[in-house]
């Protein structure tokens, strides 16, 4: 793809057009899977900021997704707020809570940070289950279909036309952020905080930014998830959700934006493809994960880059123009 610039530049728009075409013919179930995959692209890209680029072992992503989902579900169903207001608000609420994760990350290393964030995640699920008056507990919450210019966003195809532009926008934003000095600062603190400090990078501030940014993506993803499912329960945001998020990032490729997207698509599609093999589903799923992690430490994206199928990712704007100038 590196040698075919027209293919590289045209890939994203063409993919979007193909998805829109697919939406014309897909049955409701297929469309639902496509919507889920797109939402997990947002979730995966968000976790990759934190885990892949900034190297922070935090385990609160599923809980923050839940906070986004519940912010949207509760405000739209119980206070009748507009979904279009709740969508960005869910991201902001998750980001505010996620930024708190930066506090333990200032002083603690890997395993302690993991434990503290995991405890936070369990606490969030516990609150969602037990704070019945507000969250309706294990009964779950219905999410009313939002209105857009008099058109009711109901059914998987309608939802798709909301999810696709959101995912495209979030992906584009992620790319732009990573290609700036902020993205390079993330990787530098992952690699060596001392080097970061000696180059003028404020480590505390950078960690706060990356925790908040990652959580913002989780919150937006959660909000879209609530819209897609139409009904959410606390259990959906527990440990198995978290394992799925980590699998997406690791399988797709840490330190790769397209990797998170690939991981999201593969891990949403794979369980569905294995649906006919009910008994073997979990075993095959687990085996595929193990093999991939053992054989491709850089994930699927790393392998595809080595084969020249995926383009290189360099965290500098317009670096290709630079490459053309300097022989």
């Amino acid at each position, binding site marked *: 793809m590196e040698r075919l610039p027209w293919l590289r530049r045209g890939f994203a728009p063409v993919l979007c057009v193909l998805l829109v075409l697919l939406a014309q013919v897909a049955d409701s179930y297929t469309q639902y899977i496509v919507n889920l995959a797109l939402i997990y692209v947002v979730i995966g890209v968000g976790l990759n900021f934190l885990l892949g680029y900034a190297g922070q072992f935090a385990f609160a992503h599923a809980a923050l997704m839940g906070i986004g989902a519940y912010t949207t579900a509760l405000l739209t169903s119980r206070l009748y707020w507009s979904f279009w207001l709740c969508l960005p608000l869910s991201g902001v609420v998750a980001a505010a809570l996620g930024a708190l994760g930066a506090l333990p990350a200032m002083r603690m290393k890997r395993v302690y940070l993991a434990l503290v964030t995991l405890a936070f995640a369990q606490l969030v699920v516990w609150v969602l289950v037990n704070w019945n008056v507000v969250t309706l507990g294990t009964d779950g919450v219905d999410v009313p279909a939002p209105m857009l210019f008099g058109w009711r966003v109901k059914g998987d195809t309608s939802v798709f036309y909301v999810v696709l532009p959101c995912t495209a926008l979030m992906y584009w934003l992620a790319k732009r952020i990573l290609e700036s000095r902020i993205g390079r600062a993330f*990787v530098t603190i992952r690699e060596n905080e*001392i080097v970061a400090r*000696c*180059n003028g990078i404020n480590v505390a501030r950078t960690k706060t930014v990356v925790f908040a940014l990652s959580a913002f993506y989780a919150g937006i993803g959660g909000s879209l998830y609530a819209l897609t499912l139409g009904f959410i329960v606390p259990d959906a945001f527990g440990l198995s959700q978290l394992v799925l998020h980590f699998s997406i990032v690791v399988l797709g490729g840490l330190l790769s934006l397209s990797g998170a997207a690939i991981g999201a698509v593969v891990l949403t599609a794979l369980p569905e493809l294995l649906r006919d093999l009910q008994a073997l589903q979990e075993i095959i799923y687990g085996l595929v994960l193990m093999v991939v992690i053992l054989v491709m430490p850089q994930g699927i994206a790393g392998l595809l880059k080595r084969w020249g199928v995926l383009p290189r990712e360099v965290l500098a704007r*317009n670096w290709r123009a630079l490459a053309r100038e*300097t022989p």
Partner: protein
Amino acid sequence: MNAPLLDARDVTVRFGGLIAVDAVSLAIPEREIRGLIGPNGAGKTTFFNAISGLVPHGGAALRFDGRDMLHLPAHRRAAAGMRRTFQSVQLVPQFTVLENVLVGMHTGIADNPAASVLGLPGGNRGELGAQRAVIEVLEFLGIGETLLQRVNQLTFAQQRYVEIARAIVGRPKLLMLDEPAAGLSPGDVKMLDALLRRLRDEWGMTILLVEHVLSLVLEISDRVTVLDNGRMIAEGSPAEVADDPAVKTAYLGNENV
């Protein structure tokens, strides 16, 4: 006479009960190459880390470029124009040379983050200027062709140059080099020698140089400071220091034992 660029007074570093750097004072005027030498364990690197703000330290004063640095964290000192390299080269292995050196321009890119991310007009002026600066500095160092290579594909000497590039790309006033000649061939050391002189003469840079290879230090330093056991035992021109009996004792042991 102008005030010195770096004026450190009574800098002291304690690790528990151990005094690693004991009331060392150092004043470096602008455009000077200052050598900092001493036997193993003399506290040279610890002193370096104190000046960079990496280890907690005491001191009567630490002025740099007319500003008080004593209580500033490391990243603020770096932003003020104090940059350094490390004894063992510290680069981001997954990064290309371009990305690694751009890290050195972090505080030099003044773009509004929102304008930069959203691609508003002029939002990337700082970033693009920084990329120009990277290309310039790599050509200056003679490693322009490595721009888009990953650093783990480079030779050791090239990696050392990339680290120096990252330190000087933002044109800091003070460059601190921690054993830059370690692991280099004699030919590479000669090139390093020429490079440091050009940085002083053409870029007007002030350089503080910790070095084990005495020949290099005595060759290029305008003045040399000698540490032993965390204390300063001598300071002067390379010739004076080389003849100082206290320095000879520190390096070779006492002959009269």
